[in-house]
């Protein structure tokens, strides 16, 4: 039966939504006079879904037909779900029409495996060729590389896309073997390595790549996950790792039961820790170790680290380096920069921080302002911990977690 375009859109965006990566940042000035589209260096959110995620790309599958049988995946071959496929031209047209109306920054294209890996990759490339060559579209295109497709196809994708990625899905080879019988760690990593080499041949700036890990479907600890991420960042293989709390969609005895709630808080803590790796100069073994291999659920990872390293505190805000300021709980990149700028003009006191709208609710336990500590506050580990925990919850920190109490990663 032939499906109309609305039904196809419904099916193929529904199937793609479990892929959480969405960023669209790229180089600012890639527009060309007389052509359509440009990337934006900071990335732009065009709307937010009812679950609160930023939408910046038209995230769809080319098709959700799939010959694989990955236990965690909604599109596994054994599932009886409605299937559909866009034709490359259809999808290219929708992309351009959406882009012109400023609905999106560009396209995020993934696909189920139809017929074979190469056939799938070839269909995706056809879409990209129409967009780039025929429509002269310079907007953002993110392509999921199909593990197991031929190197020539991957090379062409790297040349046409703004960013490519391949999902590692599960944090260890053992888990992968058990849940995704058609995939191995080697197979999922190889397109990333190939893509990097191809793009390095062309420019000295490798193409941006990312991956996604499913959290909570298998027994890996947070430390194992962060160790993997940090290895991928260190080798400069990836720009970003996304973490996706496992939502039980398939009933399979190898998986957590369908009653399990997605470990949203754990996902949130992993993202926080990931930021510490990427922007705050932490290494994974500072955040976690064999003795405590999982992130604290009550406290954010930076506060948790600070409490375990109280010998490094308090930190004098008037003389510490940027790197040291960044390690103070509650002080972020913006706060640290404001402190650097302001202290050129005067010695900062705690009131000055408030005037600069830097929150000191957490930070005040860990700082000296011009040699002075906040006398009335506790300065012993357990006391600080309970003081931090009794702070009113910030609204910004994923409110639903506390509203419906849906969390925790133990199975």
């Amino acid at each position: 039966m032939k499906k109309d375009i609305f039904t196809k859109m419904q099916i193929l965006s529904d199937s793609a939504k479990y892929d959480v990566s969405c960023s669209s940042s790229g180089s600012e000035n890639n527009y060309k006079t007389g052509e359509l589209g440009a990337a934006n260096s900071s990335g732009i959110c065009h709307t937010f879904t009812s679950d609160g995620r930023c939408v910046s790309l038209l995230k769809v599958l080319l098709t959700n037909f799939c010959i694989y049988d990955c236990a965690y995946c909604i599109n596994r071959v054994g599932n009886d779900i409605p299937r559909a496929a866009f034709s490359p031209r259809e999808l290219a047209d929708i992309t351009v029409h959406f882009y012109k109306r400023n609905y999106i920054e560009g396209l995020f294209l993934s696909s189920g495996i139809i017929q074979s890996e190469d056939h799938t990759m070839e269909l995706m490339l056809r879409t990209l060729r129409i967009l780039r060559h025929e429509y002269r579209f310079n907007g953002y295109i993110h392509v999921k590389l199909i593990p197991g497709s031929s190197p020539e196809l991957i090379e062409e994708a790297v040349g046409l896309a703004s960013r490519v990625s391949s999902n590692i899905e599960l944090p260890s080879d053992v888990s992968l073997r058990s849940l995704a019988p058609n995939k191995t760690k080697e197979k999922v990593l190889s397109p990333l390595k190939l893509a990097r080499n191809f793009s390095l041949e062309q420019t000295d700036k490798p193409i941006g790549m990312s991956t996604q890990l499913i959290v909570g479907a298998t027994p890996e600890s947070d430390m194992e996950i962060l160790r993997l991420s940090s290895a991928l960042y260190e080798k400069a293989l990836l720009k970003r790792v996304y973490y996706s709390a496992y939502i039980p969609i398939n009933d399979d005895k190898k998986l957590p039961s369908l009653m399990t709630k997605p470990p949203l808080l754990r996902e949130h803590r992993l993202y926080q820790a990931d930021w510490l790796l990427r922007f705050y100069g932490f290494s994974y073994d500072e955040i976690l170790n064999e003795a405590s291999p999982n992130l604290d659920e009550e406290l954010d990872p930076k506060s948790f680290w600070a409490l375990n390293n109280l010998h490094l505190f308090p930190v004098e805000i008037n003389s510490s380096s940027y790197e040291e300021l960044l390690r103070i709980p509650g002080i972020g990149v913006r706060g640290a920069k404001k402190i650097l700028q302001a202290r050129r003009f005067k010695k900062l006191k705690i009131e000055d921080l408030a005037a600069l709208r830097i929150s000191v609710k957490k930070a005040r336990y860990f700082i000296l302002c011009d040699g002075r500590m906040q006398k009335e506050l506790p300065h012993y580990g357990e006391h600080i911990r309970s003081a931090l925990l009794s702070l009113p919850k910030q609204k910004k920190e994923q409110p639903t977690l506390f509203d419906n109490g849906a969390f925790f990663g133990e199975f």
Partner: protein
Amino acid sequence: MLLLYDGSFETFLTLVHEVYYKKINPDGILKKRPDMLVFDTLYEVRYDEAKSLAVYEALQKKFAREHFERILHIFMCDGADFESDLLHYIMLGFKSQKELDNITIASVFRLHSLQKELFRIAHKMSGFLRFSELEEGMLYAKVDTKYSVLYFLGLHFSKRLNNQNYIIHDIQRDLAFVHTNAFKGIQKVAEFQIPRHSKEEQKFSRLWRTFFQSTSMQNKENKKLQRQGVPLLYRAYMTEFIN
């Protein structure tokens, strides 16, 4: 003494001139004549081309580009009450340029923050603005923003929609950024007729709503977080929030 001016950038420059040479120390600066009785002398500053030009040239000469631009940007924050801070900022700049980065001075910090807020609104609008396609392929968008960000939107879209004809209509300020082969720039909107949409418009807006619906995860619903990302204020002209 209270100063009164007409709210325009040009007249504000005259005001700076008056304050500087007449050594006035105003208690406040008003854009509109107060409706209530004020027990303070009210001095109305009228536009004086020579004085304004003199101040403008002095600003261009003495102020670093970044600081000069900040003054212009602050004037785009038309709804805000920034005059006293801006006057202080300009006087401070004539004394010492270095102090203009001193965010421990309250008025300087407020202006830095206001400028950031302006940038934030402009950035959000560059994502939340929605074009619809009119007959003959012209794209048309309505915006209604707290501050005037048309200039930034024009810069942004003239890069990415380089080969398109479009109009961004600021309905609050009766201004429009127009990008056609004949004209590129900001124009005053005198009269406006409700445009007719192209044949395909309905199909693509419906397709977009379909995508928006099905890309949401029902089992992770979080309307509060959604409201933080896209506050209700911005939704009036967004295709996916209009029924």
